[in-house]
């Protein structure tokens, strides 16, 4: 239980188990076992931590290089330099509008679509789910040329809402699949009551199913937003005016000119750029009472 971050029921379960195993040698074996496990996990943690530590330390370092070092001198200068409208504020705001809008569109559509997929049977269902899942393996670069042509045809090129529509649609397959899996876990019993009261399926969805699967919807929202926030190609090709471009484009430019920028500024900008998703994740997983819920829909 409570595998990833501890929740109360998990702690309780452990205690129950401890009382069950009475014999002293077994208890001490468990203790050594736990020590070994902790040690191994700590090593893994440190290995994973090193690159992240560089990011944070370098962003406060006045003389940053590629090594993990205590900032010397400690400075906020790197942040001051990149915190301006051209490099940070406008692109981050654009990114929030684009990814926020597309996530909202995607999640609403996915919840609607998941309902019949979860509740009714059809021989087209499995092929449908499998084929939308395959499209997640398509490199997005491959479709950019026809998408551009289409956007020009229907005059969506260089519009935020057009880009939102495309971003949202391209995230739909995975979102539908995920939402459907979450919805499968919501018991049907409660719906039966609503049905007999004569509620329509949309009403049932709205008043019975959705309230029961908020954690699942939250997870889908996070997944969708995460996948969009780093997307560079879609906005780069579909938006022409530079003042509409999101942070994912400006950060790639920042990296591409890395011969001249100093590492401190680069790290500072990366930190700012990563902040929205990390914060989103932290808040959501706290609301869910532990990030283990995130894996719930994927257990098969």
């Amino acid at each position, binding site marked *: 239980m409570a595998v990833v971050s501890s929740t109360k029921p998990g702690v309780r379960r452990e205690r129950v188990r401890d009382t069950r195993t009475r014999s002293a040698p077994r208890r001490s074996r468990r203790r050594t076992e736990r020590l070994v496990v902790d040690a191994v996990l700590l090593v893994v943690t440190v290995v994973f931590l090193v690159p992240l530590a560089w990011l944070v330390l370098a962003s406060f370092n006045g003389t940053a290089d590629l090594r993990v070092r205590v900032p010397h001198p400690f400075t906020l200068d790197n942040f001051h330099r990149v915190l301006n409208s051209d490099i940070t504020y406008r692109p981050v705001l654009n990114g929030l509008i684009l990814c926020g809008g597309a996530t909202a569109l995607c999640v609403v559509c996915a919840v609607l679509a998941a309902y019949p997929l979860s509740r009714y049977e059809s021989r087209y269902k499995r092929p449908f789910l499998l084929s939308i899942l395959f499209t997640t393996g398509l490199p997005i670069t491959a479709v950019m040329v026809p998408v551009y042509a289409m956007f020009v045809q*229907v*005059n969506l090129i260089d519009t935020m809402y057009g880009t939102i529509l495309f971003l949202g649609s391209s995230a739909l397959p995975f979102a539908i699949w995920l939402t459907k899996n979450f919805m499968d876990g919501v018991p049907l019993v409660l719906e039966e009551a609503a049905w007999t009261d004569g509620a329509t399926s949309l009403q049932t969805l*709205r008043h019975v199913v959705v309230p029961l699967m908020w954690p699942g919807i939250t997870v889908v929202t996070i997944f969708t937003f995460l996948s969009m926030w780093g997307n560079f190609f879609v906005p*780069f*090709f579909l938006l*022409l005016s530079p003042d509409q471009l999101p942070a994912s484009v400006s950060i790639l430019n920042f990296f591409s*000119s890395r*011969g*001249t920028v100093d590492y401190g500024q680069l790290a500072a900008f990366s930190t700012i750029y990563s902040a929205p998703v990390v914060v989103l994740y932290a808040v959501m997983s706290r609301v869910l009472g532990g990030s283990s819920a995130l894996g719930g829909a994927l257990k098969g």
Partner: protein
Amino acid sequence: MKVHFRVLAIALSCGSLILPLAACGSSGSGSGTTIKVAYQRNLDNKVRVMDDYLAVVKKQFEKANPGKKVELVPIQASENDYYSKVQLMMRSPRTAPDLVYEDTFLINSDIASGYLRPIDSYLATWKDWSQFLPTAKAAAKAQDGKTYGVPDGTDTRGLWYNKQLFQKAGLPTDWHPKSWDDLLSAARTIKQKLPGVTPLNIYTGKAAGEAASMQGFEMLLYGTGQDPMYDTASKKWVVNNKGFTDSLGFLDTVFKEKLGPDVQDALGANFGTTVGTELIPQGKLAIDLDGSWMGNNWIKTGGKPWPQWSQVMGQTAMPTQNGQAPGTVSLSGGWTWAIPAKSKNPDLAWNFITTLQSKQNAADYDIRAANIAVRQDVASDQGYLGSMPGIDFFTGLVKYTHYRPALPAYPLVSTAIQNAMESVTIGQATPEKAASQYASDVKSATDGAVVDRSAG
């Protein structure tokens, strides 16, 4: 609440259908009074040469043409992504800019795609055109004999060397290498006498892009003999020639003997900037095979202001392989302003070109960008000649200079060169093996229009 939710669901489902259709109704944004000018913005936010210059000309133009507007469309991206995006934009009248900044190495390819509009009728009435050097006029002339772009300057290439480092290593500060061997022996001396200094930089590999093909490889190749790349008589690409393998051999020597930069750095994405703003000003690089514009890095408004540069850095011509006539080799490229075929406002766009290329503005830009002038009146302009130390030297190379084959297939051939260079640089292939891979790449890129020179 109930109603609200249903309305939302229906609106979304209908919206996705109607939105594109509704958008269809409003026609394209182009109007007779505005022109859109697309150009590449430097990835380094500190470098804004073109942006600053265009802002000045835009103001001038809008003042001289009341009611007309210029909309600048900077595209900040790597070179490849810039080209891809501009090409996509030019495919449709809705997104085509009215003026586009095109590198001469790509312009013939874009002409073949039908992206650009011939400007001969405009040129016929423009008296300034007679001021342009014949070679520059040819740069944007396609195989159909029509001209598609107005060049805004050119460049030449040669060797930059650090006189202080040369002195320390006991080499002459007035240096005139006569052959590739002279160049290599100077590099070897530096390697021996000055540890920690990179003796010689030659651009190489895929990441450096056209800089590798042109500054790096073709500067060698064109010093190996007549028509080493394209045979104008038979209209075929030359493959398997000794000059090609020899040029790769030179590269092989440089990197094998560690006379060049560290391979990982050399193949890095933005090594050109590192060379200009770090290695040379910090005195970590002795000889650099590079372009005439390098001084631009070190002037007051450059990426790395370096007031002493004109005393420290010397320039000398790149020798031919064994010193064969004419003894000196240089290559020239440059950029042009061109009007897309699908521009809705070509007349106004042309007007803007003439403003961009008025004598005064042309001189202004050549000075800002450290270009070699292509207008005779600018070339003799005192302000231009005095603008940058060394400019007279590089202007003098014009008489030895070569131009890349102005053909649609050139960009693909150039990619094949970069691949060959990269595999030799990292030691993945011998010069001979890389040359034969190049031969097969070029054969497939040009539908077999190659002439095999392996016998001769």
